[in-house]
């Protein structure tokens, strides 16, 4: 009688399922973690929000925009406020330059909770930049 042997023996269904899942998870993980960060020298700094602590209602956001320590003037900036929970109404407004490289705008936050403020910036040379301010625990007015 001829006997045949397979190296490692016969794999059970559990091993097969786990192997397949591990492979799938590895691919997904690799893809998910492959995003690279920005290397642009353009910086949004000195981000401030008032009043602090933040309450429901009108808030003022200010920040400084620079490129290699040189202030950037003439950028177009729009502000967007989103709750971290999906399904809530966002808030939009424009920000204006109040000093060279210094921008300021106001948004109305209409609900207590966690907010994320997005700064959509179009630089004078046409490049687009986006930055974010996390505002945790906006309190009732």
């Amino acid at each position, binding site marked *: 009688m001829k006997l045949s042997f397979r190296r490692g023996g016969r794999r*059970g*269904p*559990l091993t*097969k*399922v*786990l192997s*397949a*899942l591990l492979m*799938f*998870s590895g691919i*997904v993980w690799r*893809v*998910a973690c492959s*995003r690279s960060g920005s290397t642009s020298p353009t910086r949004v700094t000195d981000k401030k929000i008032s009043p602090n*602590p933040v309450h429901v209602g009108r808030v003022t956001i200010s920040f400084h925009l620079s490129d290699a320590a040189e202030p950037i003037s003439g950028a177009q900036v729009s502000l*967007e406020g*989103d*709750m*971290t*929970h*999906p*399904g*809530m*109404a*966002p808030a*939009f407004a424009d920000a204006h330059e109040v000093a060279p490289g210094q921008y300021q705008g106001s948004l109305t936050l209409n*609900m*207590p*909770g*966690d907010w*994320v403020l*997005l700064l959509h910036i179009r630089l004078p040379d046409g490049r687009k930049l986006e930055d*974010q301010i996390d505002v*945790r*625990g906006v*309190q*009732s007015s």
Partner: protein
Amino acid sequence: MSQASTIPEPEVLDSSPRFDLLHVPVVGRFLRWRHARSVSQIPLLIIGVLMILHGLLGPSLAPKNLATVLTWLHFRGVLALTILAAGNFFCFACPFMLVRNAARKFFRPRWNWPRALRNKWLSAGLFVLILFIYELYGLWASPWLTAWLIIAYFGTALIVDGVFKHASFCKFVCPLGQFNFAASTVSPLEVAVRDQQICRTCDTKDCIRGQRKPSSELVVLQRGCELALFQPRKVGNMDCTFCLDCVHACPRDNVGILSRMPAEELITDPIRSGIGFFSRRKDLTALVIVFTFGALLNAFGMVSPVYVVERWLAKLLHVTQAAPVLGTIFGFFLIIEPIVLLGAAAWITQKLKGTPRALIPAMVRYSYSIVPLGFGMWLAHYGFHFLTGLFTIVPVTQSAAASIGLSFGHPHWLWVGVPMRFVQPVQLGFVILGFFGSLLVTRRLADEDCPEHPMRVFIPWAAVSLMIWLASVWLIFQPMEMRATMLMSS
């Protein structure tokens, strides 16, 4: 003598002709089609894959990501409303099972699910775990974590059903399935036999065995019920995934999707195929408690007072981490509060001589009365997010399409949904509906157990429902405060 004639038949409260969804022209024809389930699962699978991809690779901001918007707004809302209006049609179209079925062409499960785990303890525990993780990590605010949750679901379904036979994942593991089972006890439709007389003369039992090839009994042509529900003895929707295998397997075309009085199955207590007696299933009571009190807890996590409680608890426990604080809140809501409320009601019922049952059996017997209230609260909560964020799917889809080079116009981010002031009356309506449902079930249970003095049962258990209902109404009128990170402002 056949088995069919020895087991008492399920009690039918209303013998008038019943509406049958399978007889409705277009819908009925589609559902009777052998591939109806797969065709329904494919779109959900595609959407599921898109959600995973967008969750992992798309924007990290939850309101702009398909994973979070679809999962926490639309999916939950549509699911709850479908169960309210019809039945457990999410399990019918469950994409996890499509993947599982495909995988089973390569992996043949060998083992039966362990006997010790053939109950709802594990799945009720996983239900609690999901609720806990949801609060602890603020899943609604994280597309990445939401995507991994979906992947975990697919993976667990594949592993469990890759190793264990039948629908072990659906019946004993899937927390979402348990939610659907509990909620669909109050649905107006159920998969049931049309005529018990026809089943009495049936000797093939294909609805549970499956249709076999005449020449070889081992070859299954059409699967029977994988959840061990024998149609003639099946009662209601508990454990029924609406897979319609029984409909396709029955050689007499005697299984339909029939109308019934919602919550009817909570009132009667016959022996049920695949389940046994409701009144003897402590694990089902645990599921009911998690389902109902979990509804309150889940809503409580979204209103302002929770943060006051959290800060107070953190101070009391001398901790700064969220997990122990959240664990304490969960312990109170899901263990202490139900034991105190249901235990007190059972004790009072005993003292009033409303039931001859011991304390725990009495708790088990009447705990089913709170299911409609629990479902009412889930509807109020999920309905709120669904309606207030109804149109957000439009700009998010536009944005997602734009990210891969497809243009459906500039995203309309101001498309949100129905204003909150219109949604709150709807929420109130849901919890009122749930309250009356619970009172009705309580009254019927009281009539059945203590026909001479039904008030001895009704009053203590109606008081439980009243307290839960008042808590629900209080929650609805609390200011919303959706915060993903606890203890941040303390």
